[in-house]
């Protein structure tokens, strides 16, 4: 069985997990918190980092999640929890997929194409999901420099146009704005739940827990910097700027001469985003595979999960407002519960004896 190394996990939190927060989240934060958009994001990031720390401590047992759960709740209880997480991952994947679809249709096509332009994603996702979760380590090694290059390139092009004083005055949105933005942005923060699936797939070394949490915070810092640049460029117009990362760099002066060279960096980030959007689906497959004790083959799980995701996407295609309402106002609590709290609570699981 392939193992992840510590470096690969750090790469995931530093370079890959942050990219999913660059599309619709900035504009959503602005709608609630306006110029105080950094604060609700920071809250989520700190909670996530804490949960990552707890999950890493729980992973010291070097046992995969099904085994950890079986030791604590028995086989049936473990299966039930895994199926619950599978449902959560499928649920959590809907909005990122919608985001991706809208991003692709807007940024990569001039005239609005049909859903067929996004269908190939599910083919790729099915192939990706059929792999074991632990094999993602090598992918992370490849994606990390691409993500870093794309992000840095975009920031180099974007920062000259940013006026950071637009973030002032701090606290103008008040407590209500802060809470509203925090609720509306909760659905983007569930990386600790994904980390659970990596448990048992790497050798725990001393200090890995705080290092992973530190890298998670570093990645979050990059997102915060991006949010600051985003608001610095658009200020009062930020509310209208969906697909934030595709827009911040086009004001660089060389663009008028060379054309949209920033598309090179956008493509790199979109490449990484494709993997990030497929990760919850892969996690869902892994949970189903673990919950059925390996009886459900991964390719079958991959096909079923992707078919379900596609169905959900088709269902919500023209109901974006309703989707937003449900996910951000009515059901937002599911994300901190499954994405942060429950993963953190794995620290309390009774650990099986580590095999010598």
């Amino acid at each position: 069985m392939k193992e992840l190394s510590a470096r690969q996990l750090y790469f995931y939190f530093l370079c890959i997990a942050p990219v999913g927060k660059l599309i619709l989240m900035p504009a959503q934060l602005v709608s609630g918190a306006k110029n105080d958009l950094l604060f609700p994001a920071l809250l989520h990031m700190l909670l996530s980092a804490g949960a990552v720390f707890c999950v890493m401590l729980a992973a010291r047992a070097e046992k995969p999640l099904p085994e950890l759960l079986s030791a604590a709740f028995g086989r049936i209880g473990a299966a039930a929890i895994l199926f619950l997480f599978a449902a959560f991952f499928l649920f959590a994947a809907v909005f990122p997929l919608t985001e991706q679809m809208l991003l692709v249709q807007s940024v990569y096509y001039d005239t609005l194409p049909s859903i067929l332009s996004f269908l190939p994603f599910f083919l790729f996702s099915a192939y990706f999901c059929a792999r074991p979760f632990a094999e993602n380590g090598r992918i992370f090694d490849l994606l990390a420099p691409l993500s870093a290059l794309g992000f840095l390139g975009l920031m180099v092009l974007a920062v000259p146009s940013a006026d950071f004083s637009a973030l002032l005055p701090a606290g103008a949105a008040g407590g209500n704005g802060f809470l509203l933005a925090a609720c509306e942005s909760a659905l983007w923060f569930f990386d600790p739940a994904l980390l659970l699936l990596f448990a048992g797939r790497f050798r725990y070394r001393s200090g890995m827990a705080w290092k992973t949490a530190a890298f998670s915070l570093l990645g979050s810092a990059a997102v915060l910097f991006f949010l600051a640049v985003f608001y610095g460029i658009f200020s009062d117009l930020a509310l209208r700027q969906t697909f934030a990362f595709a827009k911040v760099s086009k004001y660089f002066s060389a663009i008028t001469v060379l054309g949209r060279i920033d598309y090179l960096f956008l493509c790199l980030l979109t490449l990484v985003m494709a993997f990030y959007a497929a990760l919850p689906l892969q996690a869902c497959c892994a949970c189903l595979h673990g919950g059925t004790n390996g009886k459900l083959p991964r390719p079958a799980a991959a096909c079923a999960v992707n078919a379900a995701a596609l169905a959900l996407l088709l269902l919500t295609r023209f109901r974006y407002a309703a989707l937003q309402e449900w996910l951000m106002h009515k059901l937002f609590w599911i994300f901190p519960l499954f994405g942060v709290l429950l993963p953190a609570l794995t620290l309390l699981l009774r650990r099986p004896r580590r095999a010598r």
Partner: protein
Amino acid sequence: MNKITGTLRRDEAELKRLLPAEDVLTFPFRGQDGREFLLVFADPVTDKELLGEQVIRPLGDYGGGMSAKEVAECLTSPEIKQLSRVSDLAAEILAGNPVLLWEGADAGLACGTKKVFARAVAEPPTDVTVKGPREGFVEDVKINCALVRKRLKTCELRLHTVQIGRRSKTAVTVCYLDGISDMAVVKQVKRILRRIDIDVLPDSSYLIHFLSPKPHSLVKRVGTTEKPDIFCAKIAEGRVGILADGSPIALTVPYLLAEDFQSAEDYFVPAARATFTRLLRLFALLTAIYLPAFYIAAQLYKLQLFPVKLLLTIMGSIQGIPLSPSLEMLLVLLVLEVLNEASIRMPKYVGMALSVVGALVLGETAVRAGFVSTPAIIIIAFSGIGLYAVPNLIEATSVVRLLMLLVAGSTGPYGIILFTAFLLCFLCRCESFGTSVLAPFSPLIARDLKDSLVKYELSALGMRPRALNSKNKRRMAP
């Protein structure tokens, strides 16, 4: 049991029964004391002059004992084998080693006087360097082994030869450095070779099929080279090499994708120049694969990828072209591939004329006639040249380029991104004898990056690549 009987006529008859071909000849002669000797040899592959010098002449004066050992001592050939089975003797005759029989013989003697047909050691056409050695492997495995021995004068060099092919009995030699190569890989290679059961092994590329876990995959799992200096350098890094008789292409395992971006010349020029050249190759390859695809995707789906002035120039150029951009590009690509294939196959004396046809008629005239546009020709021409910046990957990259074009024309820029993601995923899973093909990028091995797409100075390359799992990690004193 077909052992020789000692009765000359009966043994001769048995050999003739096993070897009825007309080019298998017999030469009876008598020794000093009148005893009869018989030489059986395959005429085309026997060096008769050497045979006469080393076997017939000494025996002409021989009057000693009748045992094979005593007769062998009389001969002056350094390569004498005693074999008692007629089938083994027949095999030696077919290998070019004449067999000596006599009345009362307890064994036959196979004499190593084979005629070696091989072209001269010259620079290989597929791997040309400006600086550095110009020797290349030839079709004879013994000469190739000699070229390897010339460069690795160490007792650690092991050459293990097996015969593969029921009818061709091709000699295949496994070369490795004991104490440096990963013995697990060596054992695996030997095991695979032993299990090959095939009629004829005409070339080493057949071995690639057996050595690759997924032979139908586009991704190479076995490295190739025609140059002994590269071959020896790879073995010295910890790889295992394979030489096959009849083929100038040597194989090396494990294979890393990065090695195809390296050239021998990188080690003979300053490190900065080598780094620049390697990055240039990567740039050329990526441009060759992606440029036609992005051109099509931009025209069909996302015009904004072009600067506006370039867009207007392109629009002016494609006015009146009857085909859609994607079909036009596909057509030009196919024409280029046909030209490419024809230029390899055509006789040299018509090469010049057909080159003119290709360049003028298919290029300029087609544009003037309005069949294809100038940008398409330029892009495909650059793409065609760019692919040959990494010639070892040409088989795979030309297919990938075509697939990328199909994907771009059908699904647009996002399709290109997804296909790239799929390729990355796929490459991450590919392994060559336990080593990831994408090493040292995935898994990331920082130490090995010093000689991958960038090249550090020689003083920084004191350790063998960790990806190859060599036992002896240091290759240069610090």
